[in-house]
């Protein structure tokens, strides 16, 4: 069934118009897309942009030649979406929401931790966002994004070291 089906099979069925298959892919990748966007965009717009990424992916799915590459392809759409946001393609919609307004449970410490994480170089920031915010394990990050286990492991450990330094710096200041 869907729960056991491989991503490639789900992507192939979704290409034929099976929305349930795409729904399963959405459940599997929602945290990945959310993490990639959160590494680049204000929190207040991440949920909306995440939905847009999946809708874009659904409409472009027929153009995906290798269904086994769905994960990396979707991540690329999410990164492009974040870039477009800053190119003014999306900001013209004039977001009215106050920063952080939807994050009712966040504290000042949470906000500082997110700021410290966002201050890291992009490579480490994205991998750590998926691990520390979205709760994916290293092997899951590798499987979903198409990175090798070695790359993910290096990003996690080097990124964590930089994050410790950034948090210490915030603590001192």
């Amino acid at each position: 069934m869907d729960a056991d089906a491989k991503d490639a099979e789900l992507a192939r069925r979704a290409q034929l118009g099976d929305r349930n298959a795409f729904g399963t892919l959405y459940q599997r990748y929602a945290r990945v897309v959310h993490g990639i966007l959160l590494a680049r965009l204000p929190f207040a717009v991440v949920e909306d942009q995440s939905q847009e990424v999946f809708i874009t992916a659904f409409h472009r799915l027929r153009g995906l030649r290798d269904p086994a590459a769905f994960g990396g392809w979707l991540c690329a759409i999410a990164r492009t979406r974040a870039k477009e946001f800053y190119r003014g393609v999306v900001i013209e919609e004039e977001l009215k929401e106050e920063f952080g307004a939807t994050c009712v449970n966040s504290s000042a410490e949470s906000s500082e931790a997110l700021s410290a994480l966002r201050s890291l170089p992009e490579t480490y920031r994205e991998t750590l966002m998926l691990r520390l915010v979205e709760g994916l394990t290293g092997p899951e990050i590798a499987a979903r994004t198409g990175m090798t286990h070695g790359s993910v492991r290096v990003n996690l450990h080097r990124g964590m070291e930089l994050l410790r330094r950034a948090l210490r710096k915030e603590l001192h200041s």
Partner: protein
Amino acid sequence: MNDYLWDRTGRDAEVEQIENLLAPYRHIDQQLEFREPPLSPAKWASRRYYFASATAAVLIIVAVISWHTTSSKQRITATAIIGAPRIDEVPMASASLDVGSRIETGFLDRVRIQVGDMGWVQVEPDSILRLIENRPERRRFRLEHGEILARISAPPAAFIVETPVARAIDLGCTYHLRFSQSGEGAIEVTEGWVEVDRGFEQTLVPAGASANFRPRGISPSYMQKTSPEFRDAMLEWWDSPNPSLRSTALARLLSSATKQDAYTLLNMLHRSPPEDRAGIYDRLNQLVPAPREVSRAAVLAGEARAEDAWWTVVERELGLGNIKKKGPLQLNPYWPQ
């Protein structure tokens, strides 16, 4: 071996604590909303009604696109890249700016401002920037303190950033502008040219060059790749009120100057006291010989426009002539306000 960071095996109190802090930002499961539901055929039973509606819809879309295109070319919008900047005292993710709008960033905040169709300005941490003029032909900001990165493509003097002691007039360029609360500032240009002026004092800064400014004036522009010896001596010559220190600094800078510093020496020449001019002239003449029409006697006498022809030669020799500079400049057209 247990590695909690990698696969959640074992324990790591520090990582768990950070996870808990970041938990409020985690994705919350929700249904994907397909916002383009299939059309109901029943609604479109009448072909005439369909074409009338379609025509009206097309006209509305054209009108909306036309309005949106025009207004978006003029609109100035600010969007937080990172952190929680304050726009008009309120933490915001994104906002349209009006004249008087004030953007304040904390030590971890960054804001990107889209300046209509001119380009964009990035406000760096610990900065305060205000929009003080917004007309299609000119956008003017005031940097109270902090740092901005501006990337602008507009006619000369259409984009201006003021600071309390000097202002940067864009000539189609990319630059960093810093101004500290103690009243010191600097500009680093990476593309095009920027004119920095203060009262009737003016310095043109090309790509690859910088200039400093203080309440007492603007430094000659200097190449970012110049030697530290030359740069430090030149800034001491410019900044020191002590004549003997200035004289020593002048000797140091002349001995360490290379061809790339010719533009700085030419900048110094027309603003130096009479006693310094001969040394500057002779060193510059060694590095980039003066054209025939530039008379040493006229330059040393401080005659107006005596060294004009030398600018073209120096710019050509240093490759500065290839940097795009738009249109003729007018001295101080808008200062003081």
